[in-house]
């Protein structure tokens, strides 16, 4: 594996192909004496078919940038364009629509709904889009199969291991065919084996030429999966690294895909069935 370190310069990427584009983004948090410039003129674009890592120390502005890119906040200055649409002057409902239509989220602590099954957790992402019915159920099931959880559609989050819960969260993020997937520390709560598996799934999603995946992480173990690494410090992007190929991106996306999926499901089944039994016994 090779890594071409390129000089720091913000605003990299091809604007024509970018699905998410931030230009000179400034974000000021707080008021008065407690005011902080969390982002100081960040420019970043995400192109489909790429898995980008956003790395940086605590307090560097990663989460703020993710919130701005994810249309949860509007920038104090600068522009963010999501699939060509600017977030400038957008109200909460317009931002929600942008998220609904274009962005899938994966969170560090999964944020699944404990009272809903895995299938319903995934369906929820379509439900909020006003999509209901059997076809939607089938799509949600397909998304769970994609992440290797086709056999756990009826399980509740409490019956799933951490890795499985995160895979449900990934299925929820991809089921709506969002062109942008934003993941916040998706492996932080997982052991290395599960973390590795999650990154494999994300790398596979990023290999889709219609999707861009941005992963905010501290975890150096997942660096090999990235095509691109953006480093942020003190609210500014301080470096960007393009890698020739991410490890998780398999060339074998044709007939071998199903085989890989089954193998992955089998691997997880062995470990997860033990965990599930443990949870049930505890109940």
């Amino acid at each position: 594996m090779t890594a071409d370190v390129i000089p720091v310069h913000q605003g990299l990427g091809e604007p024509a192909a970018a699905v998410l584009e931030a230009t000179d983004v400034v974000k000021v948090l707080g008021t008065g004496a407690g005011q902080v410039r969390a982002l100081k003129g960040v420019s970043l674009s995400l192109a489909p078919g790429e898995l980008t890592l956003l790395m940086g120390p605590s307090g560097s502005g990663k989460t703020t940038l993710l919130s701005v890119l994810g249309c949860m906040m509007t920038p104090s200055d600068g522009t963010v364009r999501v699939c060509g649409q600017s977030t400038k002057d957008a109200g909460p409902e317009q931002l929600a629509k942008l998220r609904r239509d274009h962005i899938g989220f994966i969170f560090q602590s999964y944020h699944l709904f404990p009272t809903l099954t895995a299938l319903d957790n995934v369906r929820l992402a379509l439900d909020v889009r006003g999509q209901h019915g059997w076809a939607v159920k089938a799509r949600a099931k397909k998304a769970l199969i994609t992440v290797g959880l086709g056999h756990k559609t009826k399980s509740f989050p409490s019956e799933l291991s951490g890795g499985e819960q995160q895979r449900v969260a990934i299925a929820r993020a991809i089921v709506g065919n969002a062109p942008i997937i934003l993941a916040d520390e998706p492996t932080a709560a997982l052991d290395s084996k599960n973390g590795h598996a999650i990154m494999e799934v994300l790398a596979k999603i990023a290999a889709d030429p219609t999707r861009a995946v941005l992963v905010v992480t501290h975890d150096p173990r997942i660096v090999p999966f990235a095509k691109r690494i953006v480093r942020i410090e003190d609210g500014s992007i301080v470096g960007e690294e393009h890698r020739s190929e991410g490890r998780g991106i398999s060339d074998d996306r044709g007939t071998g895909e199903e085989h890989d999926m089954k193998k992955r499901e089998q691997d997880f089944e062995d470990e997860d069935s033990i965990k599930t039994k443990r949870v049930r016994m505890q109940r």
Partner: protein
Amino acid sequence: MTLMVQPFARSLAFKLARRNLFHDRLRLVATVIGIVFSIVLVTVQLGLYLGFGRMVTTMIDHASGELWIMPAGTKSFEDPSPLDERKRFTALSVTGVTDVTSVVIGFAEWRLPGGGTTPVFVIGSDVRGPGLHPWNVVAGNTDALSVPNTVAADQTYFDRLGIKGLGATAEIRGQKVEVVAVTKGIRSFTTTPYVFTSLDRARSYTGTSAAKANFLLVQLAPKADVEGVRTKLRASLTDVEVLTQAEFHDRSREFWLFDTGAGAALFAGALLGMIVGTVIVAQTLYSSTKDHINEFATLRAIGSSGGYIHTVIIWQALINAVIGFSIAAGIGVVIVRMTAESALPILMTPGLTIGLFALTVFMCVISAISAIIKVMRIDPAMVFTR
């Protein structure tokens, strides 16, 4: 604020609301108890209000006569001011009037066969003509009231009157009377038993002069213009009021319910019940929303509209309402049955039932406002920090 309640069979919003509620059963039980307490309280108060309202006008409602002539300033049926009975003949001379019946009312002392006395409210009118006669007769015959010193009494008051039924005898104002007709369910809100008799006996029992009556009940010719006849009656009679049956009904009801403060007290109780219920539901919905704040923030983060989240909360409120109302309605039916034979029965009409359900839903939806306000303030970015 968009409040679209999506079809629950298809949307997950209903499922999520239901699961959120049933997930914390202790809280659900507390909420339902609050709603049940509130709705039962409102049911009892409004049921009493309806029962009381019907009871205070029962004589007016059962009298036959389109117009009532009464001394000016009469507040209710139980207000026994006398009027000159010669006015009856004046009224009879008005075009459109076919008959005028005198009605005499008043309190009298009933001497129990076994000793002791109890007050009774005597009602007398011409036995043969239209007027005010006992109804719901379960034993005997009202025609027998034409025989001197006979009365009709309600079986509810047999114990109070010290009698056992038809043929029983007692004394009113020192005159021996015999019960020749027994009625069922003619109860007085004053708890003083009603006793029906003939016009002349009523005068005798109440000490009313033969030239006096308390009301004149006017029967009109078919197709007679009620307003026209009333105007003529007003012009030809002095010191009286001429009211339609509906007007006298309303006046009597208003006097007993509002002028005496009885109705206001019942309404205050109902209002208190509503406030208690609303506060309880609001408090539990708010704390439930607070407990599920991460989930609502996640919904917001994955792009749900404000309307979708409000729908979840409104569904929670509606589920609370349906469960609470169902239990409260069951308890209400038991209470209605238990009080059916009492001096002041609680009334439950289809209209009141529908109204109470609407009130429960309204109360629960209003209660959801605090929860909705809480949710509206959610910062979806909080999902990154929790």
